[in-house]
């Protein structure tokens, strides 16, 4: 399992990294935690001639909570997300999700930026980011732009990020209402057979004042369930509305047969994890 040959670059600033990408063009790939890219390189499914490692760019590693908004640098690791007391208070669903990603060793290395930017439908953070209505900051040599997580994913491994851009930061509102990330997986370290991120806020009168649902690994992109989210806000939370929300979500997913099971089984599993996530989120709301 020896990867193909490449040149290694470790720029110490974002500008230096962007300049390298611009100069090297298609032959270069950015590496963050490397736990998606290195396995692909070992299999020679990825054979970049240049690797641009972002690890030395200190600006890309931070968790900032300010004025009701959370911003996280792309090179922040899953372990750092889990260990952040500030984040546990301001958006506990992030820790709940990160703890279900891979295993301890991988969480020390794997980054939130790599997880959201890679475009692998199996990754857990993309659906969470859609659920949180996060925005991704993309930097290029010409400047910065912002893309919503709900508009970022085009197909498996295809995203709105241009090859010459680097995803630098993730921004989303503080969310302290009810939350749950429920994931069905065959074993620790596996990608989801089906997973659901749910946020539910209980209003002063006991109604559901905010609802957001997104699903992992049930199509070639994460799925934000806009109709079901809105329906829950309008109808309130009871057995009938939960069943309707689950039904509506299952209509828009498109799982495929693979070694995690046939599509029908995944749909079945999706219904169960989603119902569990809604129940759990509402009980915490």
């Amino acid at each position: 399992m020896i990867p193909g040959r490449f040149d290694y670059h470790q720029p110490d600033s974002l500008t230096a990294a962007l300049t390298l990408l611009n100069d090297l063009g298609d032959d270069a790939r950015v590496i963050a935690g490397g736990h998606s890219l290195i396995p692909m390189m070992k299999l020679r499914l990825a054979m970049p001639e240049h690797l641009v490692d972002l690890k030395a760019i200190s600006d890309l590693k931070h968790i900032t909570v300010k004025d009701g908004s959370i911003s996280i640098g792309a090179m922040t690791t899953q372990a750092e997300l889990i260990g952040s007391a500030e984040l546990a208070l301001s958006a506990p669903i992030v820790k709940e999700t990160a703890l279900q990603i891979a295993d301890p060793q991988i969480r020390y290395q794997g980054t939130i930026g790599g997880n959201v930017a890679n475009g692998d439908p199996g990754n857990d953070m993309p659906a969470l980011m859609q659920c949180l209505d996060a925005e991704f900051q993309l930097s290029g040599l010409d400047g910065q732009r912002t893309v919503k997580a709900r508009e970022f994913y085009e197909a498996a491994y295809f995203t709105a990020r241009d090859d010459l851009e680097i995803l630098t930061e993730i921004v989303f509102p503080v969310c302290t209402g009810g939350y749950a990330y429920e994931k069905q997986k065959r074993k620790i370290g596996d990608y989801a057979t089906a997973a659901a991120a749910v946020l539910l806020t209980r209003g002063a009168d006991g109604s559901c004042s905010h609802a957001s649902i997104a699903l992992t690994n049930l199509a070639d992109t994460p799925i934000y369930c806009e109709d079901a989210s809105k329906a829950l806000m309008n109808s309130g939370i009871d057995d009938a509305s939960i069943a309707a929300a689950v039904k509506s979500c299952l209509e828009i997913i498109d799982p495929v047969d693979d070694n995690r099971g046939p599509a029908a089984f995944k749909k079945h599993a999706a219904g169960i994890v989603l119902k569990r996530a809604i129940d759990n989120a509402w009980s915490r709301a």
Partner: protein
Amino acid sequence: MTKATISLNVNGQTVETQAEPRELLIHVLREQLEITGPHIGCETSHCGACTVEIDGRSVKSCTIFAVQAQGSEITTIEGLGNPDKLHVLQEKFKEHHGLQCGFCTPGMITRAHRLLIENPNPTEEEVRFGISGNLCRCTGYQNIVKAILAAASELNETEVA
């Protein structure tokens, strides 16, 4: 694609070696530095037999290039204890029969070492979750978990005393 000079501190000793960027840390440790405690099990980030500690993080050394570890402090099983003076974890693995074939043991103990630094008094469930990135195909984990819990309680007693 020239070789890079890589300087590492491995188990307290500064070492310098040459490696191509594509060489994985596990290969450089084993083949160039002759540190053969960390094992190559699956080489696909699953089994954890290659686990080493890099700057206070447990890392699967099959999923990091040696050049990425430039300048870092690395601890392997060789840095924890030796046949004349076993580490408490090694003692407890021996005492509780926390191994059968022994292949996963260096990674398992290196991981447990970091786990107990971060959580000196773990529950059984926390131990199981904490070593979930390390596979053992012999023991069924029962005795591994016992050994780690026993090591935790001995380390805690030593600290109080």
